[in-house]
């Protein structure tokens, strides 16, 4: 969320008059938009980091491997394995950037990028490979031949080459594990077979988050895979994490307005040393070490910066963290009507009584009616069809789910349901529910219906 600057020149002038030292430099509004641009690029993964501190060894390994493919024509296969957000793609991008700085490599290396989520079967993958290798001009104006012909075609193309004279081809298979689910693993077998035989030099780089990916490979395919695995498992400590946060937020030296940058950087240093900020970051760190979620958090902070509010304050990160950690389901409960909320509470009590056994509409309705009788207030006295409607609405919101197997045949009133909410979520929602009637609140909080 970009904060617009309605009276930019005016405001910046106001601020400039406040900070007289900055009078010579650019207007503050411009500085802030520059800052946001710079940091957003970083946080949205548009810019490849200049170097990856955490994975020096892996970087070296992969770079050496690809260099040998590009320069010596040595075929290789390697898997980069790490949990989501551990920087697999960043590592590869980094390596490729460094690799392509060599002129020799730039002229030789052909790249093919595939993604298991896009190339969902071998036929599509083959077409994509052919396209990316620019072989389709050989194929001709006909769209493409059959799958079998494509395969033969591609294999022939690769077979024609030899180690020293053919341009090396880099195959990057993102979501590698999904390729292992293709029929017979034909594509993997052939790519890995090429990498293990005296054909065109290829480097097959697979990226996956599954640690058990090798078990997915068929034995022949597995035998052809070189078993090189680059694991990206972060061993980051909290202090390193903090340093990362600081460096992620600090402006580079080549920022146009130097003074502003220095100012900003020192404020960020102070920000990171703040105790409350540290607490919030600690909580994030405990939850997950990956940088994607951190970037999400920082992004939320960053978008709160405006000319009025030119630095990140601890309150900003607190708010951002609250947004990040808020519970999705209890947020949904806020939007329910009182009747629906009552039904949810009735279900909660049923769950407590029957220890998570499924319930049906009649049971819920009975429970609700009991509550009404006890309170003897007629405010919530609804007809059964109305209650039924509310019940169905809850089902549409997937707050309750029908039990598997007890579907169509049974009447709606007697269809068995499970509550897809935890009692803590319900209680949290009750606390936050705007103007929740006290009796309902009490009913919800009480241990027994």
């Amino acid at each position: 969320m970009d904060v617009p600057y309605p009276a930019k020149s005016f405001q910046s002038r106001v601020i400039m008059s406040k900070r007289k030292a900055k009078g010579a430099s650019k207007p503050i509004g411009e500085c802030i938009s520059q800052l946001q641009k710079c940091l957003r690029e970083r946080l949205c993964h548009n810019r490849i980091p200049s170097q990856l501190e955490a994975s020096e060894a892996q970087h070296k390994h992969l770079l050496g491997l690809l260099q040998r493919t590009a320069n010596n024509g040595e075929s290789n296969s390697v898997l980069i394995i790490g949990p989501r957000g551990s920087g697999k793609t960043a590592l590869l991008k980094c390596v490729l950037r460094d690799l392509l700085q060599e002129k020799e490599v730039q002229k030789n290396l052909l790249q093919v990028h595939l993604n298991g989520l896009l190339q969902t079967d071998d036929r599509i993958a083959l077409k994509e490979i052919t396209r990316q290798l620019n072989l389709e001009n050989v194929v001709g104006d006909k769209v493409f031949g059959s799958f079998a012909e494509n395969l033969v075609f591609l294999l022939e193309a690769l077979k024609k080459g030899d180690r020293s004279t053919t341009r090396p081809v880099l195959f990057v298979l993102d979501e590698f594990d999904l390729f292992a689910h293709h029929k017979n693993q034909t594509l993997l077998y052939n790519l890995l077979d090429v990498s293990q035989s005296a054909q065109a030099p290829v480097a097959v780089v697979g990226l996956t988050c599954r640690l058990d990916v090798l078990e997915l490979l068929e034995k022949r395919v597995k035998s052809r895979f070189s078993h090189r695995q680059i694991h990206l498992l972060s061993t980051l400590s909290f202090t390193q994490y903090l340093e990362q946060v600081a460096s992620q937020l600090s402006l580079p030296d080549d920022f146009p307005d130097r003074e502003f940058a220095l100012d900003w950087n020192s404020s960020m240093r102070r920000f990171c040393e703040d105790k409350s900020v540290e607490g919030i970051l600690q909580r994030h760190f405990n939850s997950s070490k990956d940088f994607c979620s951190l970037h999400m958090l920082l992004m939320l902070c960053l978008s709160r910066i405006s000319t009025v509010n030119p630095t990140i304050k601890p309150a900003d990160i607190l708010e951002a963290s609250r947004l990040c950690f808020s519970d999705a389901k209890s947020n949904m409960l806020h939007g329910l009507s009182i009747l629906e909320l009552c039904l949810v509470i009735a279900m909660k009590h049923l769950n407590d009584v029957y220890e998570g056994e499924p319930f049906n509409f009649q049971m819920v309705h009975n429970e609700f009616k009991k509550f009404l009788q006890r309170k003897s207030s007629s405010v919530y006295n609804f007809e059964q069809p109305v209650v039924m409607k509310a019940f169905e609405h809850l089902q549409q919101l997937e707050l309750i789910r029908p039990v598997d197997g007890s579907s169509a045949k049974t009447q709606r009133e007697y269809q068995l349901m499970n509550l897809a909410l935890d009692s803590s979520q319900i209680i949290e929602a009750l606390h936050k529910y705007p103007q929740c009637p006290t009796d309902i609140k009490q009913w919800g909080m009480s241990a027994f219906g």
Partner: protein
Amino acid sequence: MKARLRVRRVYKWQGEPLRFDRKLKNFEYGSLIISVEGLPRRNIINTGHCILIEGEDEDNPYVAKVIKLFGDEGGMQKKAIVQWFVRASEVPVSKLPLLGRKPHPQEIFYYQGRGCNEEVNAESILRPVQVKQLDGPAAFPDSSDKDTLYVKLSWDTKTFKMVDSALLSPSTPLCCPKACHPNSSPSSLPSGTPASRRVKQRALPTPDPAVIQQAASADHRHTEATTSPGKDGGLNAESLDSKIKLSASKCLGTKRKNASARTPGVRKRLELHSPEKKSLPFKDALSQLLDEEFESEVELAQKLSTSPPQLLHPTYNLTPRGKMHTTPANSDSISLKPSLVIMNKLSVYDMDIESQTRAVSSLTEVDSESSLVPLAAPKPRTSKRKSAQLVSSRIKKQLNLLDEQQNLDSDTEDEQEFVPSNKALSSSSDDDEMIHGDESVQVKKGRRCTAGTLVPRSKKNLSTTRTCRKTPNKKGAANTSHTPRLGTPTIPSRLIPARHPVNILEVARTRLHVSSVPESLPCREQEFQDIYSFVETKIIDGTGGCMYISGVPGTGKTATVHEVIRCLRNAANMNEIPSFHFIEINGMKMTDPHQAYVQILEKLTGQKATADHAASLLEKRFTNPAPRIETTVLLVDELDLLWTRKQNVMYNLFDWPTRRHSRLVVLTIANTMDLPERIMINRVASRLGLTRMSFQPYGFKQLQQIIMSRLNKVKAFEDDALQLVSRKVAALSGDARRCLDICRRATELCEHSATNTSTRRLVGMNHVMDALNEMFSSSFITAVKSASVQEQLFLRAVIAEFRRLGLEEATFQQVFIQHQALCRVEGLQSISVSEVLAVCQRLGACRLLLLETSRLGVLQRIRLNISQDDILYALKSD
């Protein structure tokens, strides 16, 4: 459309048997009488005579000398032992330059190569021919005398040598055809050489009786099936058709005689075969003739009815026929030639419309050059069609063949391009000779269909989609015309040459790469020997057989077979064994088991066809006897993937070798030892036979030896390190690939650690250990260790919940309660459901946990993918 008419010949022994061979139980005879049914004329063949034997190419039947004639006891089988001669056209084109001059059209070579079956069926003998031996320096006699063939040199598949006259001595005028009297039968026209005979028959008015006889005899052709691989059952129905055509051909024959009195067909053919004789009159005659041809074709294309104006086009098949058959010795060129030749033909066709007489010269040039040489195109001509232009220009680019632009004609012409080629094929077959088996199959399928499926590749390139769409055999046509194999696809070659290894570690690494072909295959000597002798005996005996090879991955199965084939090739080159044809298919490299047929056929003949069609063609090929067929060695890798429900692919693969004439050796490779018992039904397993071989996983000594032999005295490893690698791998899998990969990784590690010191270093134990750890250690424990606090807590909650339940499965809700409790114990802030769910999903993505679909939310069930002990171990050591 058009059937080939064949004359039925009757073969009889003349006189009493000369002697009886007790051992072989056969009678030897002195001479054989060949008479054509319904004609008075007889040909008598004696031992020592030279004869024509029907082969794949009916314009140029095989030439041989009879050495022995014999029949079996019952008189059922008539056989002849022959000494072969080869024509210049049968010599592989790549070898022709060895001759040092242009071959004379009537020149034949005394064949001294091996790999040809010297025993032929006597019923494949066509008629006698005269062969004269010439001295080396002697010039060829006047070529106008076409009855005789001349021998100067011998050909042993490698070199041309002077013929030892002793070889041919028994009857120096090698053969004197005993044709009793001139006859109108095409099979025994005495005045025509084999090359010209048929054309003459067409060019001259043929008496009606002959035609009728031919037609009448057509239905007898089946009786000759054993002798003619090219025949096929579908032709009978068409004999009536061809009868009409023949009479039509007579009319045209007369006409053509008037048009070109000097039998242009003959001339042209000779012209095309003997480039040194180029004379303008011929060309004129040719173009005239072609014009005429074109007219008739247009007619034919327009109305498919068998009306008299539909004519035969002897000229059309002239060029290709001669080229189509090559000596079996050169298998590579076989696939290339037909396509090239048909391109030639096309260009002739194109040009004759515009009366470009240059065509002849361009054609002759092409013919005389090697098969890879592009067809010399006529002068550039603007095309009326864009697509035609596009296609042609692409061909030009890809094949790098054409110097000049080759264009196609307008739509109508495109359409017709197919027609002549079909007719060429069919018209060529309505003689009494046989053509190649594959073609005859397709002839049956009718013209249009043939256009799509049969016409070789480069011809298809020239064709447009439009024509193909019209073909009734849609699938085949579509497949073939859309084939991406227009050119030869290649990854572009590199602009900067590859670096070469500089230091010893790099050298070692290159040598240790699995792809580098080792000088020898150590540790598989016994298996090598077994396979070698198996294949060798089959090749020498000319029989077929199957062998099943099993073994876990990386035990050198495919490598051993390739090594065997390499050695056998060497042996064949040294003339120790007959030459053979090696084909390899891999179950993993095809999308569907039935593609196996397509791939085999393509590698065997260069044809493209649909799976069903390919299966029938192969069936034909391996069933019908053909003289001079060479053994085919077929390697089927990853056999288990060829499994289909009916198992017909496997059945066929194992059934063909059992056919009498197939000469097919099938080597199959798969991983499981008991594959035949497990997945094959009985009739398949039975045909596979019991010749099995199992490759045991390598032991540590063998692995060590493999590495040592690969390194070949490059000292890069410490001995202990090698031993460690090989012991480790032998204990794990015995996979040589693994072993080599570890060694390679170890050299890298060594290189990295040695960067600071430039001194030479050996790969030591620590490097190997590191490499082993990298490759084999499970990453689960590290992953748990490096997980975030909440993730670790969640894992502990899962274990706690499992312990509480006594089950290995819990719902998220249950685990969540445990998690909350643990949070309180650890003094962490309580954490929302969404957050814990996200933690749980992350663990599920790495497969530390196995989860149900995330839609179930808190209701999803959780299981561990890693043992509880491992988790506790990982968490404890923190």
